[in-house]
C-alpha cells in the first residue's frame, strides 16, 4: 500500500453478524491522524457504544486477509472485524 497523502484519514471498519447487531451498524468510520495498528483500530471500535462486547482477541481482516494486532492499517485499507466463524 502507498502511504498516501499526509494528514487525517478515515478507516472504514466493517462489522458482521453479532457485532453488527450489537453495535447497530454494518460499518463504522474510524478517523486516524496517521497510520494505526490493527490493535489500535480495534480499541477505537471497542470505544463505540456496544463495542465492549467485541473481544480483544477477535479476528480482524485487512484487505480480505486475517491480520495480527501489530499489523499496520493505512489509508485505503479495507478493515473488517470478524465474530467467531460458523461456516460449514
Amino acid at each position, binding site marked *: 500500500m502507498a502511504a498516501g497523502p499526509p494528514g487525517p484519514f478515515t478507516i472504514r471498519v466493517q462489522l*458482521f*453478524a453479532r457485532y453488527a447487531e450489537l453495535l447497530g451498524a454494518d460499518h463504522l468510520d474510524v478517523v486516524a491522524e496517521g497510520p494505526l495498528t490493527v490493535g489500535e483500530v480495534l480499541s477505537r471500535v471497542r470505544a463505540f457504544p456496544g463495542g465492549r462486547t467485541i473481544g480483544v482477541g477477535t479476528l480482524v481482516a485487512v484487505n480480505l*486477509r486475517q491480520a495480527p494486532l501489530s499489523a499496520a492499517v493505512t489509508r485505503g485499507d479495507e478493515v*473488517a472485524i470478524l465474530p467467531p*466463524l460458523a*461456516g*460449514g
Partner: protein
Amino acid sequence: MGFLTRAPIGVAELVAAVSAPERGGVASFVGLVRDHHGGRPVRALEYTAYEPMAESICAEIVGEAEARWPVRIALRHRLGPLGIGDVAVGIAAAAGHRDEAFAACRYAIEELKRRVPIWKRETFADGTEEWVDPTRMAAANSEEREGMAPW
C-alpha cells in the same frame, strides 16, 4: 469466483464438476442443516458472509489442496435462509487414487470451517434467535458432544 451461492447445492453437480477419466476416485462431503444444536431444537437458520473475503479464502483453500495433492476440488457454501435438511456446504475432491481424494476433501472442509468468514443465525423452535458461536459452544458444553461441532 462462485464458491458462495444462494441456490440449492447438489452433490451430483459437484462430483460431476471434478470427475474425469484420469481422476477416477471422488470423495465428497455435504453438511446438512441439523434439526437441533446444543440440545435445542432448531427451526431454521440463515448464513451470512463477508463475501469478498469468503470467496478469496475459499479460492486459497482450494488452491492449497490442489497444490498439496494431485486433485481437483469443487466447493460451495450456501448463504441466505435455509431449512432443516438443506445442504449448507458441499465439497468434492477427485483424484487418481482414493487416499488423495479423501485427504483433500477432508482438508478443504476443515480449513473452510476454520478460516472462511461465514456466520450462522439459528432460529430455535421457541422462536428465539442466536448467532452461533462455536468457540462459546465448545466451552459451555464441553461435556455435551452435540454442542461442539455443527456435525
